[in-house]
């Protein structure tokens, strides 16, 4: 079954194309890496799939639902590279809020588990807006994982993370994958790219590669034209 499908999905800013018409299918349970140079259209594609950005043309479906619709929002978890937090709520209160918004009943148990995994248990009562870049990223990761999802879109998740954080995140990805969740991860970490079965490469808004990472020179794919 297709979890994410785009049809002639296009985005332009004024005259400048950010994403050329893109038709794509990602199957349920797939673990996909998305690579490309800065400004290649990775974030634009993911934001359109999450419903945060209006396409100029074409469409995106999450499962059988239009991106951004109430049903699609129930299925999709979005982990941004620029996490934002309320400046008057602690991390624990954030976890409660996001978990309960998505109908998680045993949110406390799940939150404890995630904080332990990522190494933030001692900071659960602190305000995340006061955290360093790396801790903010870890806090955002817990918020993306506290809620149920069938597909997760992740933008540059390793930026700012220390080695234990990276390893914890990789384990979380593996666990989600084993549960049958679809993962689409935009990254510049080429070592991680070798661990996935499918690689998508964007260059100047165009899809230039769709296949196994082993069958191509990944370093060449991330160079701008």
């Amino acid at each position, binding site marked *: 079954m297709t979890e994410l499908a785009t049809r002639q999905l296009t985005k332009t800013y004024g005259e400048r194309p950010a994403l050329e018409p893109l038709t794509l299918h990602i199957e349920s349970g797939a673990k996909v890496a998305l690579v490309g140079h800065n400004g290649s259209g990775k974030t634009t594609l993911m934001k359109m799939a999450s419903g*945060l950005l*209006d396409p100029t043309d074409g469409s995106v479906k999450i499962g059988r639902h239009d991106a951004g619709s109430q*049903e699609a*929002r129930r299925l999709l978890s979005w982990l941004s590279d620029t996490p*934002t937090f309320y400046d008057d709520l602690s991390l624990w209160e954030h976890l409660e*809020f*996001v978990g309960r918004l*998505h109908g998680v009943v045993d949110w406390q148990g799940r939150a404890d588990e995630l904080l332990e995994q990522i190494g933030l248990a001692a900071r659960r009562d602190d305000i995340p807006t006061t955290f360093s870049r790396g801790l903010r990223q870890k806090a955002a990761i817990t918020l993306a994982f506290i809620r149920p999802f069938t597909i997760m879109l992740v933008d540059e998740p390793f930026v700012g993370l220390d080695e234990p954080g990276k390893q914890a995140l990789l384990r979380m990805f593996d666990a989600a994958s084993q549960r049958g969740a679809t993962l689409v991860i935009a990254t510049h970490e080429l070592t991680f790219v070798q661990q996935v079965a499918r690689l998508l490469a964007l260059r100047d808004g165009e899809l230039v590669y769709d296949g196994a990472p082993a069958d191509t020179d990944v370093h060449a794919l991330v160079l701008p034209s």
Partner: protein
Amino acid sequence: MSDDTLDVLYDLRRRRKRHRLGDIEWFDAAYRVYLVALFGGGTVLWISSSISDTTASDQAIADIARNGPALIGLITALTFLAALRSGAQGGPLALEAPDVAYVMLSPVDRTRALLRPVTQRARSAASLAATFGAIVGQLAGRRLPGTPVAWAASGAAFGITTALLWAGTALIAHAIRLPLWMATSLGLAGLALQCAALAWHVPGPANLAGSLAMWGWRQHPLDLAAPLLAVIVIIIGVALLQQTSLDALARRSSLVAQLRFAVTMQDLRTVILLRRQLNQEQTRGTPWLAVPRWITHPIPRRGIASVARFPLTRLVRMTAFAAMAGVFQAMVLRGTTPALIGTALMLFVLGLEVMEPLSQEVDQPDRTDTLPIERGELLVRHLLAPAVALVPFAVIAAASAVAVLGTSRAIAPAAILALPTVLAGAAGGVVSIVRDAPDPTKGATAQAFVPPEMAGISSAMRVGLPILVSALAASTVLLVRHAERLGTSPVGAALRGVIGAALLTCLIGYWVRRRDQWKRKFRQFMSDGQSYTKQQRSTPA
């Protein structure tokens, strides 16, 4: 079984409200409210009661009865244009960034989740408009039939109607993704129809709203259709909330947060920059005209390059400010003295808009400090290009004043006074920009010489002084009015006004040139005084 997501959202909002209320210093807040009420309310009452304007003549009252609804309706038509453009650019809502990231991306019913932000937006707009409407209404009530209280009430009703129409129209334009060009065209069409209504006395689209503002004098039940329409429009806007674009909300959220902070800090320059970003107003890639080769000095060249890249929207806005300044001056000449405040505000914002080269220089203090020229000298030279750019706007101001006055006798004084008044009025903007600039004479460890008790007054001066400069420039028109009343030559009075405006402009230019030196000397003087006092204290008697 899961919680109802809306209950979770409401619970969060209650909790955050408790946090915020817990953080408030109640004494401090009460003191602020007291100051605003005392100074704001006191100032309005003082200005209102000190106006010695006479009751309008029968002829003027007949004119107002005939043209009033269409003229006041112009405000509603302009608001309609602004609302359409705001909606097309992603307004009128602005959520916090985490609300977009967590609430809007959760499976919550967006219509119900957005209901409270919509209510807050409409309520704040309505309160502001009602206050403004009431102030203007009670001023009108002092010259026109009807009591000031009744006029204040009808002014407030007009304000609320217009504000609700603004909020509803913007919500609809946003939800249907109205393209900006179409929003502007529709808004301008409405404005043109309203102008036609004023010029040819035909029914205009906003006449009923305008007529509502005159209920302090006479009541037409049909006018109630205007508030009814406003309520219907906002209900339609709310019904379309499901179509709200997250794209726009996400873009606006960070800008609006910065904007609120800048407003709190009374940082006008930042407010203007953020407003431009919010409206997606970008400098032109291709300048309207090339910098003439015969201008070789780098500072004027840089200034012209900046002014020549003003986007069309800014030029239109500046034209409107200039035209409104002319209209207000005409109103002053006709006897409505408080319109002087309108002129002052228009010239002040015109100055803020046109002084872009100066503002850009002020925005980059590190670069300015590396240049082999004294800062005061540099800033003064940056005034040249904007001053030249103000010439066409002075012509527009003069033309609109003459058009409103409708007599050829006004042409000569308007032609004489326009440019000096516009230049001196824009100097208010210069004062604001330069005062807000980082102070290079102040060291990192420099002490503030203003005691905390004076901070409020200092803060009020920061906002009030620039507008006072613009008001002084605008008051030159009073000389002409006085000459008219005495039956002496208005041209002679206008020439005296030119001297006053020119002196004011030169004074501000000199202040910009010497400000750093004066501040440095003042700091040195205070520092020497402190050292001397310390020395005296440490010396044994």
